[in-house]
């Protein structure tokens, strides 16, 4: 049976419809169950003493005063935990040359960034643990710091980890064609420097973990706000010397992730180590300062880049020199080289050109480690690419839409391999651009811009086309040696009352995984979505899987669910055929009833079939299989990744007196293949857009030259709030992937990927008549006024 996606009137047509999320009802009633809501008998709390210095030797730790606080039970040093927890090294074999020193759950004799955990205080309440932590006296001896990215490799810069030999973590050049010749023969070469600020995810629920160690059963249970329960199971097992099968990771409601909660954090592993030592449940919930100093950071890149074009605006080549500083350690187990690697894989993504050179240089420094955060590398690569394309268009006096149309891969060009060696199965750049131009009414907007300009109001239109990497295969992590599953599974079962339970290895972080899965299972089995209960986030219960990352839930978890649901349908119909003495092929399941497929006439409700199978199996033929539980797994194999594409537009107004940028409106057309739930896809796009808009206008972690983080609060690290955000128009083109029956690709990162570039181009479009240009994010009033020459140093 294949799903007739083109026929909206097909039976059980839930794939492609907006169906409410089954878990949203309890969340609006305050009945969510996040880690901090869980209380276990004899539960303890841990608070961490963290390094106040970016780089310091730990000479001595005095804990007597802390231990005397009422409620404090134990105080642990890094050396104490090292006795039960082995260190990790975050490298991947396929990222050749990547190096990073061993990292422990807490610093042992040296702290390498402000916020690194040094001492753990365990008490009967969080308040007592914090009181104790304040009384711990650590004798630090400050060491020279490495904080500046661009001088990290200079001879006179101290080496952060002497055993590594230098401060270079990773370097790679991605090269194709003859870049020197292309630039030498170009009609125009446009160069620019870009920089993207250091961001962090600012999940509203801080990182949270509650670990219970049961020595009698040799069983560790971790209630964890995570995106990857099975990955965490493997990590805790390996480093705490527990068999993998004896670690259970339970992931209930998670209050925002965006990539922040897919990594291994030293303080979370420390919590597990402490639970194992003490034999009692131990909870750690980061406070907000801890979130800012210890959640991974991202996007701290500086780039020199140039584009070569011919007289007609045809792109001849991109030459990109990308630098990023990743903090003191590569983050386990996904590593901190991926972001730079993605930048040099994604530049020039939408365009058909021949010559490419992109180099990334990844260095260590004494700051919070960086790692994968929503749309990893994409906003950087899109800003470089689309910034340069716009600058080239301006040089040529060409319309920014026109230059893109002349260079984007033709919609019938696929399959194709890009100069960056990315393989595209099927994209829709031109169709998407046409749709965008229609949605935004480009010509009318240009007229509005011109009319405003007449009145001295500076408005600008910015376009940004992008590609997005989704549905990752083992080429992302597995081939490098990490125990991170690219495969995902789904078990679907029919219970006696005819209801369906689906257990999936992908997780729910709020994006709507459970709704998406319920729709797919409902359609593939033939029941109402309300009859499908979806269970995720428990390593002891669900099939093995990767969880949520790189926009894989719908494309991979969804396909596994589709296949499992179809298998269950076949099993049910096999039983039904025997009971009804009918040909199995003449039967179907619709709305929870077995029916004649030709006429739709009801033959038997599923609850009757369930009653017979479960309670009166004696009445069925002895040799009749009655397997009303089916499991299927899915992994992509033909392409390393399923790329999606899209294009965004931003319309802004720049106040040239104050430097303030107002977002008037934003558009995004994207192609994530088969859309399972239009509303959920739109809202993923909108949420992603706003994270990208934050990066464009507000978000920037500041450090001083000593490596002190300066803005570690929500009042100081600005994120978008309701008042500054525009309404956003979303459109779609659907080019399903042919690799799966479902045809779904990912949609979680498209918004974030393109929004900063669209805003940058819009601002520059507004400023161009004044001869001003910005390319350092975020575009704060200060930076705008400097570009205009209003402020000079």
């Amino acid at each position: 049976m294949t799903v007739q996606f083109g026929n909206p009137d097909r039976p059980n047509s839930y794939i492609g419809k907006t169906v409410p999320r089954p878990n949203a009802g309890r969340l609006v009633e305050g009945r969510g169950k996040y880690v901090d809501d869980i209380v276990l008998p004899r539960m303890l709390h841990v608070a961490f003493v963290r390094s106040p210095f970016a780089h310091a030797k730990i000479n001595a730790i005095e804990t007597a005063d802390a231990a005397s606080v009422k409620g404090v039970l134990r105080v642990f040093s890094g050396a104490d935990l090292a006795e039960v927890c082995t260190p990790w090294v975050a490298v991947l074999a396929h990222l050749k040359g990547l190096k990073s020193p061993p990292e422990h759950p807490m610093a042992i004799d040296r702290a390498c960034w402000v916020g690194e955990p040094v001492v753990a205080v365990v008490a009967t309440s969080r308040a007592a643990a914090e009181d104790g932590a304040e009384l711990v006296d650590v004798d630090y001896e400050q060491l020279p710091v490495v904080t500046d990215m661009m001088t990290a490799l200079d001879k006179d810069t101290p080496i952060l980890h002497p055993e590594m030999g230098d401060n270079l973590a990773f370097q790679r050049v991605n090269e194709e064609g003859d870049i020197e010749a292309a630039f030498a023969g170009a009609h125009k070469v446009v160069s620019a420097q870009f920089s993207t600020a250091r961001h962090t995810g600012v999940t509203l629920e801080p990182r949270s973990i509650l670990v219970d160690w049961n020595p009698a059963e040799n069983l560790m249970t971790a209630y964890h706000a995570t995106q990857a329960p099975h990955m965490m199971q493997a990590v805790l097992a390996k480093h705490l010397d527990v068999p993998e099968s004896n670690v259970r990771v339970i992931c209930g409601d998670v209050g925002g992730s965006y990539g922040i909660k897919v990594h291994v954090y030293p303080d979370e592993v420390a919590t597990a180590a402490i639970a194992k030592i003490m034999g009692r449940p131990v909870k750690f919930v980061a406070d907000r300062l801890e979130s800012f100093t210890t959640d991974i950071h991202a996007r701290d890149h500086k780039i020199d880049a140039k584009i070569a074009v011919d007289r007609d605006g045809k792109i001849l080549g991109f030459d990109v020199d990308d630098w990023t500083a990743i903090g003191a350690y590569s983050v386990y187990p996904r590593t901190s080289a991926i972001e730079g690697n993605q930048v040099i894989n994604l530049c020039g993504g939408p365009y058909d050109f021949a010559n490419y050179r992109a180099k990334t240089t990844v260095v260590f420094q004494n700051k919070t480690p960086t790692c994968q955060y929503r749309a990893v590398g994409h906003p950087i690569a899109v800003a470089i690419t689309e910034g340069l394309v716009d600058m080239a268009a301006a040089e040529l006096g060409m319309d920014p839409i026109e230059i893109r149309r002349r260079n984007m891969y033709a919609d019938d060009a696929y399959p194709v391999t890009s100069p960056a060696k990315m393989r595209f199965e099927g994209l829709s750049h031109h169709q998407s651009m046409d749709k965008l131009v229609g949605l935004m009414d480009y010509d009318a907007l240009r007229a509005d811009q011109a009319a405003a300009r007449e009145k001295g109001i500076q408005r600008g239109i910015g376009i940004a086309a992008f590609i997005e990497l989704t549905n990752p295969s083992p080429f992302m992590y597995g081939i490098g040696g990490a125990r991170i599953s690219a495969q995902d599974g789904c078990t679907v079962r029919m219970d006696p009352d005819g209801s369906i339970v689906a257990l999936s290895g992908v997780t729910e972080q709020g994006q709507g995984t459970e709704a998406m899965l319920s729709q797919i299972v409902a359609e593939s089995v033939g029941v109402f979505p309300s009859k499908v209960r979806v269970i995720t986030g428990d390593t002891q219960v669900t099939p093995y899987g990767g969880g949520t990352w790189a926009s894989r839930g719908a494309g991979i978890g969804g396909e596994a669910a589709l296949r499992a649901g179809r298998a269950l349908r076949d099993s049910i119909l096999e039983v039904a055929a025997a009971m009804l003495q009918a040909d199995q092929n003449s039967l179907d399941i619709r709305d929870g009833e077995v029916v004649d497929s030709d006429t739709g006439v009801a033959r038997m409700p599923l609850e009757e079939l369930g009653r017979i199978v479960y309670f009166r199996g004696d009445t069925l033929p002895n040799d009749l299989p009655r397997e009303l539980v089916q499991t299927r797994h899915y992994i992509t194999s033909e392409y390393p990744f399923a790329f999606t594409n899209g294009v965004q537009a931003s319309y802004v107004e720049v106040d040239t007196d104050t430097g303030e940028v107002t977002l008037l409106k934003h558009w995004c057309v994207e192609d994530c293949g088969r859309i399972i739930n239009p509303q959920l896809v739109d809202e993923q796009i909108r949420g992603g857009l706003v994270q990208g808009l934050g990066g464009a206008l507000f978000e920037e972690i500041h450090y001083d030259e000593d490596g002190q983080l300066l803005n570690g609060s929500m009042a100081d690290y600005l994120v978008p709030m309701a008042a500054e955000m525009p309404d956003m128009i979303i459109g779609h083109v659907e080019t399903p992937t042919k690799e799966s029956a479902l045809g779904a690709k990912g949609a979680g990162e498209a918004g974030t990927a393109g929004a900063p570039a669209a805003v940058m181009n819009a601002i520059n479009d507004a400023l161009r008549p004044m001869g001003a240009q910005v390319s350092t994010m975020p575009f704060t009033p200060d930076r705008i006024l400097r570009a205009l020459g209003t402020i000079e140093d």
Partner: protein
Amino acid sequence: MSEMFRDKIEIDLTVNGEAVQARVPAGQHAVDFLRQELGLTGAHASCEHGVCGACTIRVDGDAVRGCLTLAAQLDGSDIWTIEGLTDTDAIRDLQKAFVARNALQCGFCTPGMLVAVEELLSKGGVPDRAVIRDHLSGNYCRCTGYEAIVDAVESVARQRAGEVTS
């Protein structure tokens, strides 16, 4: 918490229509008291310094930050949390609209967001989108991008004003 803040204080209040008597540490925040002592985990602690709004509760009719209020200050007050507002169907229309419009994703901000929205809507009338956005400027949502929330609030305001909405 220094010794002074460990001192216990007797409080007498109404929470979700039920009388509550408690002896609380002087330094305990209202949101911690509600969550830890009364098991009302709907309000969430997030920034813990009054910026994000995830801890918003209703105190004597006003939307108040549970992280900037001490439990001791609740003495004599009438407190409503998301649990009580749910049980009494006081904001059922808003909750339905949030679900229908998918005006929440992870849901962590939602209980506080709903209390803040109800404060706006209880003033009556149909606020325009800019007013809604302005009123919600103290409630941080990292998932949705806010537009769906504004849509849901606007639709409920219209319904309550007797306007027909599609």
